[in-house]
């Protein structure tokens, strides 16, 4: 009998506890238990798939309406039985009202924001979304559009009893033009599945992020998600060629162009990219998809001083140039959290800082030569203390998993306070150091990781459960720190409800005024995702 099948059987049986293998103290290695859905970098060691918390877990999260007592419910109507009947007519049999079905959609991924939505609607077509919004606008019912519910600022869940419009069933791919690389799809397509469909054609999405197993393209667009390869492929403002959105009054705005160049008037689609569902519900998009690189290599490097980190980044840019596709940063604390909470293995010993450098190109030999000469140079000049490099897809995925799963690993600590800020590169790590000093031993851990290439650091502070002292020490101090060096209080996560009070930290008064005027123009009754983005 071949070696592997018997172990598959044993593993499966072990999982179902109907068979005990005696004296086996070691668990199966991580590489054996993971599968692949065919996409080149689709694998994530810990499944980010099941986002919805169980009802019991959800009930432990305090309601946002209680957590933010100063928040007043807007002048919206409440859902009545008559409304439910209308919804049944519009979205036949896809109206959910059972608490067990809805609770997961009322709580965000990080388990900190919980709404009291009573109705979940699951449209399948743009026409259904249009009908829903036209009705809600007429009745003055507030609505929250929801994609994969992986947002980190509480922007995808209700605050009070808003109607939840889930885009999950709008997951069709409409068309793909292989030559131009333009994909047109509905907003509910999960990024991982999109990549699975693109892979046989040699294409991939221009953006990728750790939540790819759950996040949907509509949500990514609505939040202008950055991700792990923005350094190379740019952000969604450049890669999204067209958007179809439904406005608050139910009108369908068709800007679903597939043209690379189209300077005919105002570029309205840009309004929907990053406006977090507050100006319209994105129902379809056309995205420019780059080719899957023929050769991907990843190097994980260990440095013991931040000066070394900056020198390494500089050398990587100079010596890799056009093949450099990602430079990600992790500190020792973030490597420790994936090792402790998810049992992932770090190939290097303990270093103060880790850099993950990825190259993508069309010619493996050419890329390896450049990468090897960079690595030789880094070792020679003492810019790194240790490192490892991988070119095989399985090892590339394992190394990426260390960076992609930090957020998942942190969640296991209990309560996570997340800050995603852009700061000047020379001060990239200073915020983490200062925070550690300020918070002291009250917090379980203070970690810093992020996109070094864009100077975007994710500062995370964890506690076993919500700690008012720690929270008060952090906010607004972190945002004030960032504002002082003219950074962004939210590099890519958006404002949602958790950061709305700090909008003015990174925007002037006149700027915010014009934003509000636009909102007033496009959504006069304010029914789309209320209570988000703007402070009261």
């Amino acid at each position, binding site marked *: 009998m071949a070696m592997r099948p018997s*172990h598959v059987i044993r593993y499966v049986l072990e999982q179902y506890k109907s068979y005990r*293998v005696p004296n*086996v103290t070691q668990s199966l290695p991580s590489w054996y238990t993971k599968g692949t859905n065919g996409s080149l970098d689709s*694998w994530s060691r810990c499944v980010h798939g099941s986002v919805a918390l169980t009802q019991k877990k959800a009930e432990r999260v305090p309601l946002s309406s209680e957590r933010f007592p100063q928040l007043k419910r807007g002048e919206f109507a409440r859902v009545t039985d008559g409304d439910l009947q209308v919804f049944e007519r519009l979205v036949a049999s896809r109206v959910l009202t059972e608490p067990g079905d809805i609770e997961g959609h009322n709580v965000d991924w990080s388990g900190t924001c919980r709404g009291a939505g009573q109705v979940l609607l699951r449209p399948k077509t743009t026409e259904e979304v249009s009908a829903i919004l036209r009705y809600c606008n007429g009745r003055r019912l507030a609505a929250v559009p929801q994609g994969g519910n992986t947002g980190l600022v509480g922007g995808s869940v209700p605050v009070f009893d808003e109607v939840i419009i889930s885009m999950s069933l709008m997951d069709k791919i409409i068309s793909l033009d292989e030559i131009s690389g333009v994909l047109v799809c509905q907003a509910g397509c999960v990024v991982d599945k999109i990549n699975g469909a693109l892979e046989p054609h040699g294409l991939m999405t221009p953006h990728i992020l750790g939540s790819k197993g759950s996040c949907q393209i509509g949500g990514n667009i609505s939040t202008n998600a950055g991700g792990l390869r923005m350094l190379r492929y740019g952000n969604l403002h450049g890669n999204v060629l067209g958007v179809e959105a439904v406005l608050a009054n139910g009108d369908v705005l068709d800007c679903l162009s597939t043209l690379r160049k189209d300077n005919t008037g105002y570029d309205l689609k840009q309004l929907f990219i990053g406006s977090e569902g507050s100006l319209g519900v994105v129902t379809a998009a056309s995205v420019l998809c780059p080719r899957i690189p023929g050769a991907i290599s990843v190097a994980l490097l260990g440095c013991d001083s931040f000066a070394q980190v900056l020198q390494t980044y500089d050398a990587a840019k100079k010596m890799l140039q056009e093949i450099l596709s990602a430079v990600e940063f992790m500190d020792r604390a973030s490597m420790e959290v994936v090792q402790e909470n998810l049992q992932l293995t770090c*190939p290097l010993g303990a270093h103060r800082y880790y850099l993950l450098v990825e190259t993508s190109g069309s010619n493996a030999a050419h890329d390896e030569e450049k990468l090897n000469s960079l*690595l030789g140079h880094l070792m020679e000049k003492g810019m790194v203390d240790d490192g*490892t490099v991988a070119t095989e897809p*399985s090892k590339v995925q394992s190394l990426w998993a260390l960076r992609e799963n930090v957020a998942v690993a942190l969640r296991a600590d209990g309560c996570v306070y997340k800050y995603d800020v852009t700061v000047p590169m020379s001060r990239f790590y200073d915020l983490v150091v200062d925070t550690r000093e300020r918070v002291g031993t009250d917090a379980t851990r203070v970690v810093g990781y992020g996109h070094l290439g864009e100077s975007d650091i994710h500062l995370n502070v964890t506690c076993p459960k919500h700690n008012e002292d720690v929270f008060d020490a952090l906010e607004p101090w972190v945002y004030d720190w960032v504002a002082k060096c003219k950074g962004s209080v939210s590099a890519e996560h958006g404002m949602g409800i958790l950061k709305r009070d700090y909008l003015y930290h990174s925007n002037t008064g006149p700027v915010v005024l014009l934003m509000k005027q636009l909102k007033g123009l496009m959504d006069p009754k304010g029914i789309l995702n209320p209570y988000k983005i703007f402070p009261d």
Partner: protein
Amino acid sequence: MWPIFDYGRFVSIISSSDVYGVVWMRSLAQLHKMANLRVLVGVKRVIDYAVKIRVKPDNSGVVTDGVKHSMNPFCEIAMEEAVRLKEKKLAKEIIAVSCGPAQAQETIRTALAMGADRGIHVEVTGKSIDGDNNQTGQMTAALLDWPQATFASEVTKENDHLKVVREIDGGLETVKVTLPAVITADLRLNEPRYATLPNIMKAKKKKIAKHKAADFGVDLTPTLEVVGVEDPPVRQAGQKVESTEELVAKLKDSGVV
């Protein structure tokens, strides 16, 4: 794939083209201390396990052109065990051997970066992927007339023999084998290390001896012909039924009952 342990002087068909057959000197061996173990580790270049396998349109095999290859994960486990033996000073030399096309040298380089001292590449042309046959270790032991311990999940050296814990269907079996012996690695034997930069740099200078199968007078004419390779059948969607009556009716309709 399999490490071979040799206690004492080991002259084999592989290391010298002049000598045919295996010679070992037991008496001399017994005088040597433990650190004279030499370990031969077979490593194979296979399609990377993260890649989606596609069957060729003519069903003659799987697509290997342009597909990413890497060292078989079980070979990595075997390499790791050999390196650990060397670190424990139980082995003095690790030799990585691979039979395959020219690109197999990359796999040997990876083995060298993990800690092998030198490599041997026997060039064998033609298609080769991991067929999951689980024969090589056992055949080698039979040809050499050495004892074998397969599916090893733990290997410890005790005096002049090895104690090996094997993974079998009923649980675990512990066997003792005298040296030299053939061991095949199982999943739980260890977790292989990544090659770190200093070792990768060092590996560039280590030697890989190149040979052809003809050098050893080995005839590679296949005695086995692969007639066809197919995808597994597509899983049919299940159907939900509301009651037992409906279930029975559906089973009858489909002719199953």
